[in-house]
């Protein structure tokens, strides 16, 4: 790809040149996604109707807690028992509010002790439990650990023997979900996704009333970066201190990393943080630097919500329905919350801005997907398997989609057509569908990469912190800071590979290079060969 001058992205005149440069990885311009026509009647939307048209396994369906659970036919213990379950809550907890009472009603001898914990707490509870042999029966891995590590270290066991009618269950999935090195190891299945990986927090989320008043239309085509910057400025002026043009959770480094990663990736930094074609980090690319420059320019304009730097993601989200800011780059996960707590608020989704308003390179998502792992020493794996089997079935996923109003899509196409899916969720899902492609994964090609993952030490400052430092002015030179980050990331990866090699793992930096990768297409199983 031709080198681009970073100022091009910020100053209007350069946008055309940038577009030309981007042509290499251009895909169809993102047309606004029309919400699918079949909006369900509201009374049907409100109440989950239970089993979908797919055949529920033979046996009487049992009802409980407003949710109808199919009889899995599994032979479960009849003595009173408590199954322990720990994850990071969120949308899962919304569904569990319906699911757990229903399950316990069908199985009166079973109590499910569910802990939805913040990540740092999860990071203490799960390791301590595993060391002590009494981890929760089903757990989500804390950040910093991959499923491959969990399996390698013997923390998790496979689901094959515990999910009722396992072969049939697994076969019901669309292709590409069960992937060796991600949720399948040695031919055994260990986990499955709760919602599809094909989702992001990269949409333009906006206050309809404010943008209408300012006569800004992000829906017919994506805003250019210049238009975006101008829009934020105009909206800020229009708000006259009552609201601001753009809000970002600058107090949370992870969110700052996402923001820049998404902007840069759609601008042409293919693959996000790593360009899979070359196996090189993208941090120091023109697109990354330009995305930071755009953010800084908007800050200099005074267009960014003034308290941004002290807001974490959740606090920032809450400001939007209050009308404190007009636009943010975010996802669709908050739909159920805002619908219940701010029913009068009207917002919409559009494609995030791209430099020239037309061309974009797709965002990537990882193959496979996992959230829950079955603890290797669980006393009641068949109970956990029964519950997981339901959660991972089309029927269960349909119930999930109903409960969460489709806030994040399922991997089952049918589940995504469930009644009660919010029109905005459909719109967001259509944008995900249109803008995202399956990325290659070194772990899939070479499961030994897990050894490298175990060796990698966190970078200080990491990408998110660097962006935050640039945003607050503690770091002053974006190009220099991002180049330094790239160097440190390279060095650490090389060190990790070397350390893994020293332990006998057959890994190399070449494992991160996928020469045949086309960023505009899904990287499918066949492409690994």
């Amino acid at each position, binding site marked *: 790809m031709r080198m681009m001058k970073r100022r091009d992205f910020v100053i209007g005149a350069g946008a055309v040149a940038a577009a030309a440069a981007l042509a290499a990885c251009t895909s169809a311009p993102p047309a606004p996604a029309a919400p699918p026509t079949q909006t369900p009647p509201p009374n049907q939307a409100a109440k989950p109707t239970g089993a979908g048209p797919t055949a529920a396994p033979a046996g009487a369906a049992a009802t409980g807690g407003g949710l109808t659970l199919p009889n899995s036919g599994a032979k479960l213990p009849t003595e009173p028992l*408590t199954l*322990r379950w720990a994850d*990071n*809550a*969120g*949308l899962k*907890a919304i569904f569990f509010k319906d699911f757990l009472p229903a399950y316990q009603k069908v199985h009166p001898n079973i109590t499910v*002790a569910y*802990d*939805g*914990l*913040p*990540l740092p*707490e999860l990071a*203490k*509870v799960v390791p*301590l*439990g595993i*060391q*002590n042999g*009494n*981890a*929760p029966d089903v757990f989500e891995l804390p950040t910093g650990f991959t499923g491959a590590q969990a399996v390698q270290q013997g923390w998790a066991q496979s689901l094959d023997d515990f999910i009722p009618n396992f072969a049939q269950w697994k076969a019901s999935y669309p292709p590409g979900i069960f992937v060796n090195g991600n949720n399948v190891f040695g031919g055994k299945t260990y986990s499955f996704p709760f919602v599809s990986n094909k989702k992001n927090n990269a949409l333009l989320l906006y206050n309809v009333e404010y943008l209408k008043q300012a006569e800004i239309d992000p829906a017919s085509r994506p805003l250019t970066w210049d238009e975006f910057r101008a829009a934020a400025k105009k909206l800020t002026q229009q708000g006259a201190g009552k609201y601001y043009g753009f809000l970002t959770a600058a107090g949370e480094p992870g969110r700052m990393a996402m923001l820049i990663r998404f902007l840069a990736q759609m601008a042409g930094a293919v693959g996000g943080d790593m360009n899979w074609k070359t196996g090189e980090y993208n941090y120091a690319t023109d697109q990354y630097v330009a995305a930071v420059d755009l953010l800084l320019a908007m800050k200099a304009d005074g267009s960014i919500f003034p308290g941004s730097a002290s807001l974490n993601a*959740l*606090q920032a989200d*809450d*400001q939007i*329905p*209050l009308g404190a800011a007009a636009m943010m780059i975010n996802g669709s*996960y*908050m739909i159920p*919350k*805002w619908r219940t*707590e*701010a029913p009068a608020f009207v917002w919409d989704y559009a494609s995030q801005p791209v430099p020239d308003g037309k061309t974009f390179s797709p965002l990537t998502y990882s193959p496979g997907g996992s959230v829950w792992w079955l603890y290797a020493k669980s006393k009641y794996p068949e109970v956990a398997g029964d519950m997981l089997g339901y959660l991972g079935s089309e029927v269960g996923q349909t119930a999930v989609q109903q409960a969460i109003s489709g806030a994040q899509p399922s991997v089952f196409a049918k589940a995504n057509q469930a009644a009660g899916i919010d029109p905005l969720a459909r719109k967001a899902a259509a944008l995900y569908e249109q803008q995202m492609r399956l990325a290659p994964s070194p772990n899939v090609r070479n499961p030994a990469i897990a050894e490298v993952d175990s060796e990698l030490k966190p970078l200080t400052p990491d990408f998110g912190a660097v962006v935050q430092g640039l945003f607050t002015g503690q770091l002053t030179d974006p190009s220099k800071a991002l180049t330094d980050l790239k160097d440190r990331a390279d060095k650490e990866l090389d060190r990790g590979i070397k350390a893994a090699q020293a332990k006998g793992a057959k890994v190399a930096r070449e494992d991160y290079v996928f020469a045949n990768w086309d960023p505009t297409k899904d990287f499918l199983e066949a492409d690994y060969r």
Partner: protein
Amino acid sequence: MSATTSSLTLQRRFAVGWLRGSRLRATITSLILGAICLVWTYPFLWMVSAALKTNVQVASGAGLIPPSPQWGNFERAWTQAHIGQYFTNTVIITVSTVAIVVATTAMMGYALGRYDYPGRKIVLALYAATIFIPEGYTIIPVFDLINRLHLNDTLFGIILAEAGGAHVIFVLLFAGFFSQLPHELEEAAIVDGAGFVRTFAQVMLPLSGPVIATTIILQFMSSWNNFMLPLVLTLSRPELRTLGVGMFAFQGQYYSDWSGMAAAATISLLPIIGVFLALQRHFVEGIAGAIKQ
């Protein structure tokens, strides 16, 4: 006024004037303190008001009056944080922990503060040294230890883990307090035929009301709010958890239920405030009278 006014009259007049002055002073002081307290407790009031708002209203910030009180928050807090279920556990753990801590630290403080004997300085030095160690990560060895004692998943394990530890601050407070009590107290007790233990239990300990009250309040607070130890020590038996653990039911990946959390916090704070109100007069009455003799 005659120059021969007796000193007694002078004294009385002085005392009356001093009292009258003090009443006026008290009124003015109260007014000033009242104003300060209003600002001081604003955040606390905000928490109570947040418990009656919707989550979106909480995010809107400063106003104290909930537009339409959401009493349902308390209901949700009660069920979601398992307050009913966890309350008894919390009381058992907190009361036992406080009792153990007061007893052990008072005894330690008495020995260290009142007597000099071989080994005292070493123990003092060891205790003093522990206060410099950051605590952040000691959860892992503590957890390991409770497991080896086969006490995990018992209330006693939690009590021991919370009551355990050097509690240097309390020991130093007791030691400091006992060291400055007059020796006549003991001598009188010995004349009465009291031994070491009885002197401590019947003469010395009752005098240490303020330190005991301080210890109770501080330890009560830390046990009542503690969540990490109860959480990891009851992994297999969630029914043994405490209110502090329940508070985490409101924080999740994408949502935080601010108002539910505020409601749960409000409910779980009431007992602490009760304990403080009940004990604080000990600071006032205390030992002042006893020392006079």
